[in-house]
């Protein structure tokens, strides 16, 4: 069963209406609106409460507003009665042993509201934070903005825990049937809500998770997302590419039109969470001080399946190879991966061969065209942004066949000696100029150098940065003493190819490092074709075997 956005809207509206009823005395307009109200009648409390309310309203005369004001004051404000002969609508009164205001429950809800950035609403300054009116209003806000777990938790810990006792007091002290009926309805509605939320949490019920959004409606959604998140996507940088062409790389977007979804980005998404150059710490002659991130906001990264699958490979290096790296970990924690659907692929893509055409560990998936976007939301925290949109049935599709394919050789460790000395690698000695462009474009290349930058020639004040490096650079293995472990471009090419399609998997299990995005091929100024290099090796080994 699916719960539609209309139902969510109805739920939040009913919370707000109930909140208003407890907040202050009823006026004529409120009574009029109640007359036309249709309420759910899913349980006895709801049925009987609604019937009692209808009866009261039907019989209510011109004095009803005054009559209800007196009743409100008597029941909820304890006007004209000895202490205790009222139903004071604050949770602390019902949950503290001495039945007094501003106890533990009050402190808890204050913290909860503050945690959501909610202050006291205008005109409600005279109400305690744990007043029923405010608790119902908050629960309504959670329906719009919170997760199922948050809604269920607040409902159980801060509404249902005291409502039955409160309702019993209203029954006892109420003078008209009106507030008794309202309380009955409240009880019935909250019971209904509990069932709904339990169903949603257990998965028996589900919220609509896929939506169709017209592009003009996406703009305000993006604006709302940008209040809380930095949003990155492939973006066009005019005339910044090779030979004056446009460069497409990941950048923070301001508008939907910034997203380049019809072309492959020249650089991968890694620069968003693993910057090209990053200050690790600052130092003087005495001490080092860790650099803290300038922007604490979380990040939404809209990326294709290859790039999303590449994130897991970088995680492997930075978080699981030896101790985890703090700088990477703290960026990674902020990262929310949104899948940019990729159905066709592009020139030189071979993701299908590498098994990275499908990515399922995303928080939302998006199909964009010129008219609208289809969105599937997996992480509930993002549902509120899309709840008002048209529910549809959408799940992203993936490339099932590329124009090119890799024949990844099954290499055994003991073949390595033979592969290392193959003349095959020498073809790259003359061709490769060691520019490292392939490493830069690769979504899984993770290597870096550390570089110290000194602010003034005569001082020791400066900072240490880590800067992307690459195994195809001439000096990549050069030690302080000047020795070079791999001396030729051919040896470097062998190192790179084997890392991407052999030894990463040998070390970490699971998957090859290469995701088959083909950017290294697109990027090479000398037209070295890495896919041909893999396939050539494969053929050579097959020939030798046979």
């Amino acid at each position: 069963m699916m719960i539609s956005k209309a139902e969510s809207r109805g739920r939040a509206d009913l919370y707000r209406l109930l909140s208003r009823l407890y907040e202050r005395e009823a006026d004529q307009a409120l009574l009029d609106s109640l007359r036309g109200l249709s309420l759910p009648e899913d349980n006895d409390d709801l049925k009987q409460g609604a019937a009692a309310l209808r009866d009261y309203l039907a019989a209510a005369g011109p004095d009803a507003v005054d009559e209800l004001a007196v009743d409100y004051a008597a029941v909820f404000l304890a006007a004209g009665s000895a202490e205790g002969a009222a139903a004071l609508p604050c949770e602390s009164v019902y949950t503290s042993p001495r039945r007094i205001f501003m106890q533990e429950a009050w402190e808890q809800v204050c913290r909860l509201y503050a945690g959501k950035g909610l202050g006291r609403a205008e005109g409600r300054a005279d109400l305690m934070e744990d007043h029923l009116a405010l608790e119902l209003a908050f629960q309504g806000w959670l329906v719009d903005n919170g997760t199922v777990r948050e809604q269920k938790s607040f409902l159980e810990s801060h509404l249902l825990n005291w409502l039955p006792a409160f309702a019993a007091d209203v029954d006892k002290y109420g003078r008209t049937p009106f507030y008794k009926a309202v309380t009955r309805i409240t009880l019935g509605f909250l019971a209904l809500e509990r069932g709904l939320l339990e169903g949603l949490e257990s998965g028996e019920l589900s919220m609509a998770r896929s939506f169709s959004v017209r592009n003009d409606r996406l703009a305000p959604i993006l604006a709302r997302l940008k209040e809380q998140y930095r949003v990155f996507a492939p973006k066009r940088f005019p005339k910044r590419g090779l030979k004056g062409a446009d460069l497409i790389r990941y950048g923070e977007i301001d508008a939907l039109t910034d997203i380049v979804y019809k072309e492959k980005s020249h650089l991968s998404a890694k620069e968003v969470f693993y910057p090209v150059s990053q200050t690790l710490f600052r130092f003087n002659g005495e001490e080092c001080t860790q650099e803290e991130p300038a922007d604490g906001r979380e990040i939404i990264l809209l990326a294709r399946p290859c790039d999303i699958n590449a994130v897991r490979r970088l995680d492997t290096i930075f978080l699981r190879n030896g101790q985890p790296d703090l700088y990477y970990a703290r960026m990674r924690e902020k990262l929310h991966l949104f899948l940019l659907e990729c159905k066709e692929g592009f020139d030189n893509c071979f993701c299908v061969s590498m098994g990275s055409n499908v990515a399922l560990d995303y928080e939302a998936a998006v199909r964009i065209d010129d008219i609208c976007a289809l969105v599937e939301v997996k992480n509930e925290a993002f549902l509120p942004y899309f709840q008002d949109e048209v529910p549809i049935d959408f799940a992203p599709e993936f490339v099932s066949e590329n124009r090119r394919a890799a024949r990844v050789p099954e290499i055994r460790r003991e073949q390595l000696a033979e592969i290392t000395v193959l003349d095959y690698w020498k073809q790259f000695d003359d061709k490769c100029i060691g520019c490292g462009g392939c490493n830069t474009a690769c979504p899984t290349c993770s290597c870096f150098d550390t570089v110290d930058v000194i602010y003034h020639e005569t001082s020791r004040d400066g900072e240490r940065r880590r800067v992307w490096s690459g195994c195809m650079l001439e000096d990549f293995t050069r030690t302080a003493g000047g020795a070079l472990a791999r001396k030729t471009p051919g040896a470097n090419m062998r190192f790179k190819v084997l890392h991407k399609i052999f030894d990463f998997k040998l070390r970490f299990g699971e998957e090859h490092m290469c995701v088959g995005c083909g950017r290294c091929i697109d990027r090479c100024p000398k037209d070295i074709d890495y896919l041909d290099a893999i396939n050539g090796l494969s053929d050579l080994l097959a020939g030798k075997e046979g």
Partner: protein
Amino acid sequence: MENIMLPSPHKILSIVKETQAEYTFRVAYEGETKHGQFFQLSIPKVGEAPISVSGKGEGYIEFTIRKIGRLTQGIFGLQPGDVLFMRGPYGNAFPVDQFKGKDLVVICGGTGMAPVKTLLNHFYDHPEEGKSVHLICGFKDLGCVLFTEEIEKFKGKFHVIPTLDNSSAPGFETGMVTAHIGKIPFNSFEDYNVVIVGPPVMMRFAALECVKHGVPEDKIWVSFERRMSCAVGKCGHCKINETYVCLEGPVFNYSRARELLD
């Protein structure tokens, strides 16, 4: 989460000139290091480089650094009293426990003596833990000889063959270390280990020479010097095939080291 990239300051206690190009920095340090481990030293105005611990004592450790090229030059502007940033110790170590009660052969070339010096001193100070120690230490020429005093000291308890590559001098043999491996009485040993540290070419030929003299491969231990920007398995510089020298090395049994192919 611990910040594994953040170094800490350590005071330089003294700087001793070993040769025209090599200096030993004694740095204040409290803590354990194992024989063969290294630190990432911050070289002012440049960055970090992995440097082996060449000596240790109460409250200090030593690094012997060659003044060569751009990378290490910055460190030679420092004076005793200045602060050196470093992090570590990193890497595994020579398996001293496996060496106990057995004969030990150490073959080193040039600055390759630095990473084995604390190991040698361990068996010098605790002769009861080992049996015989044979040391072949090769240097290019007389001007390149390191740790002269300690080599003299070792002669008191060890069988020492100091040698110069292609010149002669009193107290030194002539020739590469490989030329002297035949002098080691492997046949008289009951059980033994061979440690080889030096430039890659020297290690390769010394190991081959040992094998030629009947040394089983798994009795040989080598230590790799690699470029490292992180020493914690991230920067990729020291990787050989599926092996990260910083995490699994720098000390390797030769039976494994010979499978690591650059």
